[in-house]
């Protein structure tokens, strides 16, 4: 601090301590002070996060009579969304998310290792991490169009795929096509979340393991693997949630020709024809929340088992 600043502060000091001690003696208010400081945050979260989800959970159980337009309590919506085309959409979403999450976890982990272990790779590292930041979080719509231009029906690379490589059956507007695009933002998301964990692997562990006579495989089997398992599991979980919730990419790419629950929700909300479709959408959305919650519970359980040594 500059000497000048110091003097400035000390000259104003006489007033400040007085007011401070005054507030201290103010009793309950001063103890509450800091808590009051985060009340806006808590209120905001309550109104804009917890309230909407709560409303979802209640109104999914409301049904509108098609004739009288009376609202009643009902489990009809829940029954509807757990069967038929809706169940297929859930299954499709779960499948796509699980497959792309696991695949991206593997590829992203490999990329993270490659980047972290490259010597004198600071520029490369910065390029990869910033690119990952862009693609992982904000790419949805732009990515879809980049892929349409590449391997869509009029895409630049499409003739190479169908002609040279003989991949005639491949269509972007399919589960496989979506998976290819999802990897484009899931792999970067994996890189972003796992790089800190990979960096936290201490070189001393590898060296200690070497010196004690362990092979490279034994090191990964007994040390590196177990240490990385919890963060990798957590990251995979995040990838799954991210893929499961993806809507923009799918909407821009396939319209609603692929059974995905996010597309079903959007359809039911935009339908002005079917009475009560709105509540069906709420039930579908509630189903998503419940599924993500179940996956979280499973994850917490596995995490407890793999990271007993962390607590």
């Amino acid at each position, binding site marked *: 601090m500059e000497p000048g600043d110091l003097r400035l502060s000390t000259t104003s000091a006489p007033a400040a301590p007085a007011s401070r001690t005054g507030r201290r003696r103010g009793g309950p208010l001063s103890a509450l002070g800091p808590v009051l400081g985060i009340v806006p945050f808590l209120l905001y979260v309550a109104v804009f996060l917890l309230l909407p989800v709560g409303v979802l959970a209640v109104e999914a159980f409301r049904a509108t009579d098609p004739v009288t337009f009376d609202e009643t309590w009902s489990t009809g919506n829940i029954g509807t969304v757990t069967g038929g085309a809706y169940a297929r959409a859930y299954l499709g979403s779960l499948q796509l998310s699980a497959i792309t999450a696991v695949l991206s976890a593997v590829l992203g982990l490999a990329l993270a290792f490659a980047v972290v272990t490259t010597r004198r790779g600071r520029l490369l590292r910065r390029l990869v991490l910033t690119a990952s930041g862009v693609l992982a979080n904000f790419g949805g719509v732009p990515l879809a169009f980049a892929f349409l231009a590449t391997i869509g029906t009029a895409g630049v690379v499409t003739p190479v795929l169908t002609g040279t490589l003989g991949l005639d059956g491949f269509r972007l507007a399919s589960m496989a096509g979506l998976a290819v695009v999802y990897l484009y933002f899931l792999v970067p998301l994996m890189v972003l979340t796992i790089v800190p964990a990979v960096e936290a692997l201490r070189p001393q562990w590898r*060296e200690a393991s070497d010196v004690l006579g362990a*092979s490279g495989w034994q090191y990964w089997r*007994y040390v590196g693997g177990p240490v990385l398992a919890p963060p990798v599991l957590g990251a995979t979980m995040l990838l799954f949630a991210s893929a499961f919730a993806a809507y923009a990419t799918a909407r821009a790419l396939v319209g609603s020709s692929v059974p995905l629950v996010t597309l079903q929700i959007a359809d039911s909300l935009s339908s002005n024809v079917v009475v009560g479709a709105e509540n069906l959408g709420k039930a579908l959305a509630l189903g998503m929340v419940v599924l993500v919650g179940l996956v979280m519970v499973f994850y917490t359980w596995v995490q407890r088992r793999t990271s007993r040594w962390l607590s």
Partner: protein
Amino acid sequence: MTAAPEPGTVAAGVPGPAPGRAAAPADLREQPPVAVRLEGLTRRYGGVLALDGLDLDVAGGEFLALLGPSGCGKTTALRAIAGFEVPDAGRVWFDRRDVTSVPPSRRDVGMVFQAYSLFPNMTVAENVAFGLRVRRRDKAERAGRAAELLELVGLADRGQRYPHQLSGGQQQRVALARALAVAPQVLLLDEPLSALDAQVRVQLRDEIRRIQLELGITTVFVTHDQAEALSVADRVGVMRAGRLEQVASPDDLYERPATAFVAGFVGTMNRIPAVLGDGDVEFLGVRREVLGSAPTAGPAFALVRPEALEVEADPRGHGRVVTRTFSGAVTRLTVALPDGVEVRADVPSAGSQGLTPGTPVTVTPAERPALVEPADVTP
């Protein structure tokens, strides 16, 4: 990191011969004469020469410390012994085996790192037994050996803890136990105490020495702390710029440093302007014999330890006390001499109360041969 040692640390750091040093020669007769030999070891990083043709022999059962400022190559040398550094040139021998290109996992060494080397996902006992686990020994043997070694390092009751539940000193004990569990040929210690508090450091240092003597294991210990090196090692190698300046017993290193660098790095050393005569050297108004071979006559510096200077209050003395630092039995004085020379002297505390700052004094070197450094050589 500075090459200059902390003033005053030497007094505490050299408590005479290290415990058990007398026993070493007897062991040497039974053991192979040389357990580890480094031969012309050279290692270059970019433009920096970390090892510059390093030669070193470590006797079986010996505790050898490599001492030097940071960047002197001592850690690189240790890592070359472990196998983590492959030298650009030169050889590493274990006993009669050329291990230069043997990977670390097949060298049969134990190593303790600076810090944080314990596997965080394993209990203390599992850490200690790791070497046996990868050697596919059965559970009972592993558990037995782990218990035995934890007993040895005084942590018998901590086997089921995880590393992060232990203090830094305890973690290093476990690391030591882990390194010893496989009964290695050579034990390597890479500044194992540098991350610890002063008190724990001294305690663990002495314990490492006790265990080393108990097991009679050949040990190479890398440190930048001279007090540490001098207090536990049979011999100390002082390194500088990828080479050994001197390898000698702590006493020899202190009393008869081979080079000005060693003299300056080990303990506190006064450099006093002197004139070399024929077989003797004149400084502070007296003549003393020259220790070792005398350089050619002319201007020079006499190298004198603080405890080899006597200070007396003298109203007509040319020196003046500048600071006075009491540290128990001895008191360290800084005395300003004419011509801008300052010397440090350690005098018995008893009877030095009168030597307060400002007191005029005379400084006289003790009656014994002095080390001399020619004036044109910069340390």
